[in-house]
């Protein structure tokens, strides 16, 4: 009766003992108990995204049964007040509107604690160490600690320094991991400085650089599309692909983030991380397995095949823009320089377009056009792969307008895939026209994808780094964009604002691209 082969495959539990009942249970449930410490727990990201994600995981039963949440921030809260604060934020921000109440909320709340802290004062980190030990004893969190840095980035090095000083960088009984929110640095030099601070304390396999974009289901679908099918691989190269266009467009302006954005800009905020990550996924070679190391290794390899531009090249391979007043969805909206916390003569780009080349066997000669901007006509994220035109006018001059095939991976707002191909119009004449085949994950599978933060926090708890960015890829992305940043920062653009809110973007960007997919 005993199933010996399965029993042998049962995963070990936290202390190395084997629990044979674990074998084969759903892998989406996290079994290893832990405390999660949110640095910056009184901030916007925590209340809007992180706390709702953790509570949703609790309600779905995907958190470990023995779990604790620790808030660590400057705002003065007692533990009870912080629990009340968390409850109030969940009332506001749970995406499905579910209310924290009853037995489940009471159980969750008793797992929440808080330390009012000065990030420069090591005594508070010693308090944290004591609190984590108390959680281990009283809540069974097993000595496993996940530190989540959701403070403004300038504070990261200070926190890491004090984690080390308080001997929190390792746990005698369990694991220690650190999640670092983006942006990871503001340029190549600052990213290297931050990396040096982190790697002095934590090894790479304990560092989780989060880019929530990578937790979105459609981004993960790119891997399945490319490597769970055979039909795309033979044509996924320079022989068939004419160019690739990657777009991340938003209709929103900077909203409440003017102070941050005016020091960042579209190139730092979107291209350096989200968009270059998409490029890596769409252009990388097939990893030998779906393991984190194999996927991240291939992503790094393809990024390393992109030659960073010289300063002299920058104007021929990039374009920038800044929105002025305009109209979005029928409403007049202000220009960027009129936004809150933005300098009235700001030189910050709200639109960035870059043309990159991947110098390897697969992609040599195929331009990759990347663009991202704010206050564009609509929210749209996609990867459009345009194939080469037909080699011979089979139908003669009457079909001069035959369009090349385009394969589009749609990421937002309607995740899916579409394909443009040519078909004969029924009738005696040889008319050919473009038709569009469309697959939507929403109607195809009829389910909402889980929010990105749920997926990523769960992965960090499970020790799966696949969807987190490895340092070598972060560094390479900075190496690619830093020359452009240098030139743009040191050159005042007197044409700003050079596109109206709600328009297609600056004319200079359209000239850079072989084709401008309409937004």
């Amino acid at each position, binding site marked *: 009766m005993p199933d010996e082969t399965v029993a042998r495959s049962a995963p070990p539990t*936290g202390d190395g003992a084997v629990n044979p009942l674990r074998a084969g249970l759903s892998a989406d449930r996290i079994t290893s108990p832990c405390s999660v410490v949110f640095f910056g727990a009184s901030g916007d990201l925590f209340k809007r995204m992180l706390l709702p994600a953790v509570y949703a995981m609790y309600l779905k039963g995907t958190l470990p049964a023995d779990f604790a949440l620790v808030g660590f921030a400057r705002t003065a809260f007692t533990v009870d007040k912080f629990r009340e604060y968390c409850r109030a934020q969940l009332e506001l921000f749970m995406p499905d509107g579910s209310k924290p109440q009853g037995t489940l909320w009471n159980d969750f709340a008793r797992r929440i604690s808080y330390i009012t802290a000065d990030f420069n004062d090591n005594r508070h980190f010693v308090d944290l160490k004591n609190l984590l030990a108390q959680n281990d004893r009283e809540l*069974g969190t097993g000595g496993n600690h996940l530190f989540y840095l959701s403070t403004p980035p300038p504070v990261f090095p200070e926190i890491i320094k004090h984690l080390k000083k308080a001997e929190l960088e390792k746990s005698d009984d369990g694991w220690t991991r650190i999640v670092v929110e983006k942006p990871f640095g503001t340029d190549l030099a600052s990213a290297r400085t931050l990396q040096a601070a982190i790697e002095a304390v934590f090894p790479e396999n304990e560092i989780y650089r989060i880019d929530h974009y990578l937790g979105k289901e459609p981004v993960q679908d790119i891997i399945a599309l490319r490597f769970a099918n055979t039909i795309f691989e033979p044509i996924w190269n320079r022989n068939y692909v004419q160019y690739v266009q990657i777009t991340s467009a938003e209709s929103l302006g900077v909203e409440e983030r003017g102070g941050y954005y005016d020091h960042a800009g579209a190139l730092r905020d979107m291209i350096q991380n989200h968009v270059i990550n998409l490029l890596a996924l769409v252009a990388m070679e097939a990893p030998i397995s779906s393991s984190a190391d194999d996927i991240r290794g291939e992503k790094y390899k393809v990024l390393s095949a992109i030659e960073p531009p010289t300063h002299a090249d920058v104007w021929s391979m990039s374009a920038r823009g800044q929105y002025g007043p305009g109209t979005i969805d029928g409403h007049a909206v202000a220009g960027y320089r009129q936004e809150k916390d933005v300098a009235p003569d700001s030189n910050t780009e709200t639109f960035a377009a870059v043309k990159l080349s991947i110098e390897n066997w697969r992609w040599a000669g195929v331009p990759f056009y990347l663009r991202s901007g704010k206050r564009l006509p609509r929210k749209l994220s996609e990867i459009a792969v345009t194939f080469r035109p037909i080699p011979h006018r089979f139908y003669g001059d009457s079909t001069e307008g035959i369009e090349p095939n385009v394969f589009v991976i749609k990421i937002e707002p309607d995740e899916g895939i579409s394909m443009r191909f040519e078909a004969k119009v029924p009738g005696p004449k040889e008319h050919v026209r473009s038709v569009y085949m469309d697959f939507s994950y929403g109607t195809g599978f009829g389910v909402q994808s889980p929010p990105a933060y749920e997926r990523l926090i769960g992965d960090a708890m499970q020790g799966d780094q696949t969807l987190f960015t490895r340092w070598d890829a972060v560094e390479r992305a900075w190496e690619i964009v830093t020359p452009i940043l240098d030139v743009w920062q040191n050159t005042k653009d007197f044409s700003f604002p050079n596109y109206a809110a709600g328009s297609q973007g600056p004319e200079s960007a359209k000239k850079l691209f072989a084709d401008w997919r309409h937004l």
Partner: protein
Amino acid sequence: MALQLESVLGELADSLRERGCDASVATMSVVVFFEDATIGALARERIRMLASKHPSRVILLDGTQGDDLHVVNGCDWIELGVKSRSPEILRSAVATLRLPDAPVVLLWIARGIGSDARFVSLSEDAQTIVYNSSLVDVGHDALCEFVEYVERNPKLPLADIAYLRLAPWQECVAIFFDGSAAAELAELERVEVGCGSEPEAYYLIGWLASRLGWTPSAADALLSRSGKRVAYEIHRQGEPRRIARIALSSAQSTFVAEVDASQETILLSAHGSSEHAPRYRAIDNPGIAALVERAILWGQNDRIFRAALAAAGEILTWGKE
């Protein structure tokens, strides 16, 4: 007499034309057979949920109706009255109406699995066969039939919803024995399951037995690897197809997972040498659509399920003796 499928095919073609150039996506053909009107009504509702998540062509074979019934709703929903139809006719109808390239999933929601020639005929073309023993019978007879059928056909891609329904409770039981508490597993002496239908309870005990190496030794007891007697007891408690309580005990400890008074939460309590503060889990009763999805994606070739089913079969056999 053959089914008149020409009009069904005609309506399907009309429906496709009406849809115009909208692309259609399909993941499978779902063939559902039932012979009980109440079960049929339930099946219709749940299969709609399944088909809304996994676009499918649904072919409902209604064993309560004669061939005056045929319903075509769009391209993807067909109902046929198949009362008194022969196995060959059913198989032929499915062959005609199924999507040509998509896999066939057969949901057999009726008694007679294995002995019913219609089931045998339909199962031959199915890539996945999903049974629901506790929907057919809240007692254990349907489960016994299923055990016997699987023994005779070990390679068929079979899954039972009653087992798949256990997943959140398996998780709850496993939680008790993580870490150092794993040692307690060898000390267990008693298992009690409160459930509104028997198949889930037998599956749960079968799962424990197969994972822990227990073998039946009496109508109400098993023998552990070390020769310790493990008594088991099944109570009818709560709604059919819902587990209400699982209790495991050794001489030193008691572990109980039970639906609490709010009916929204499972309370996990451990007393004795493995004492632990109470823990709570949200009750996660996956709908039938989610369970069928689980069966399709990984249920039918699950070695742990097969082992649990075999163990449940042995326990049932000892119970009869």
